[in-house]
């Protein structure tokens, strides 16, 4: 009886395809709205790149039956093709709801959370290995512009890391639901 109860509880924790499809749609709506409010464009608009990948679908190897192009001549039947054979093709298929969510989450992690963590690693190197005298400011620039294209101060980094960690925890909740779903599918 206890086992049965546990099984039912576990089953109820699994996210099925319909649920993951619905969650994907809801999350995309939230992210599109946030992108528009924050006026993200060009290189900052990660959502367009991620959605383009999802729309393109996945490449799957499939075997298809193809007619032979080799013709044989039969004295009675005349010209005819010599049967058919199977061949490998690459087919474009839609991603499943779970796969779409996976790609979307990876996009958020790479574009929104990872940069703060990259900056933390750079800052750690500079502060720990650089010794005294380093004020913690990091400039990014190129040979064209005289001003830095990006400036990272210790204050920026700390604030962003705290906020990014909060987002990472929330995204982690979605990922846990997916993991349970994938475990159920095995």
């Amino acid at each position, binding site marked *: 009886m206890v086992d049965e109860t546990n099984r039912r509880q576990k089953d*109820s924790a699994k*996210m099925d395809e319909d*649920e993951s499809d619905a*969650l994907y749609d809801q999350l995309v709506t939230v992210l599109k*709205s*946030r992108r528009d409010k*924050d006026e*993200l464009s060009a290189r*900052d*608009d990660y959502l367009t*790149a*991620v959605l*383009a*990948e999802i729309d393109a679908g996945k490449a799957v190897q499939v075997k298809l039956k193809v007619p032979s192009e080799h013709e044989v001549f039969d004295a009675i039947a005349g010209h005819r093709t010599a049967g058919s054979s199977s061949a490998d093709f690459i087919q474009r298929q839609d991603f499943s709801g779970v796969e779409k969510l996976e790609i979307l989450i990876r996009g958020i992690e*790479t*574009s*929104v*959370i*990872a*940069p*703060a*963590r*990259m*900056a933390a*690693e*750079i800052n750690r*190197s*500079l502060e720990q*290995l*650089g*010794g005294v*005298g*380093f*004020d*913690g*400011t*990091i*400039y*990014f*620039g*190129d*040979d*064209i512009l*005289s001003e*830095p294209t*990006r400036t*990272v101060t210790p204050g*920026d*980094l700390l*604030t*962003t890391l705290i*906020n*990014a960690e*909060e*987002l*990472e925890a*929330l995204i982690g*909740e*979605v990922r846990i*639901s997916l993991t349970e779903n994938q475990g159920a599918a095995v």
Partner: protein
Amino acid sequence: MSIRPSLLTEIDAALAGLPKGNLNSASAGYDLYEAYVWALVLRAAENEGATIRFRDRNGNPPTSFWFRTSPSNIFSKAHNYCHAEIDFPGRPKLEAHVGIFVAGRSHIAHECDVAVIFKSEADICRASNVEPRSSKLVLAVECKYYLNSGIGIGLGRSFLGLLNDVYKGDRYFVGTAESPNVKTLFAAHRKNNELGLTPLNTRREARLVSRFETTFDHFKSSRP
């Protein structure tokens, strides 16, 4: 399983709460990725016993640090670009740079996203306005920050082609996105790579640092 009702609202609020633009936008990733890999190279050098010092283009310890976001000459004076000096006892000093050009066998300049070169070579190049020779590279890394699985086979082929001009040795290809085709291509040609590398994947990060450590270990053991 449905997620808890407030989760999406909380995700939206967390996105809204992030400071705008500077460190939590895709463009930040593009700018920071090479410097992040450079920091991993330094971590590996430190693990292998090197003393690290930071220097600006005039050889002074910098109070703030300038990184390149686009490749330029090692002798560029556009900004006070900085680099790391890597010192293994009893071995020639090295320098680690982000985004410099190096001259290949053909004398054509190639972009090196992360380059570890001999300091003696770097000094000559800064003094004489010339590109470092690729034969003086101890380690080089090609870095690709992609939001989707956009690391196509073409980039892999380009990297293999590039290696023909910048000599053999420890050249790495790293990227944020997975790419089974590129992975297969590099496996067939036995080329160092780490795809799917971001700070969120600590296992891959540790594996790459370990490979960099092997490069430095070989450098320490090689004949002076």
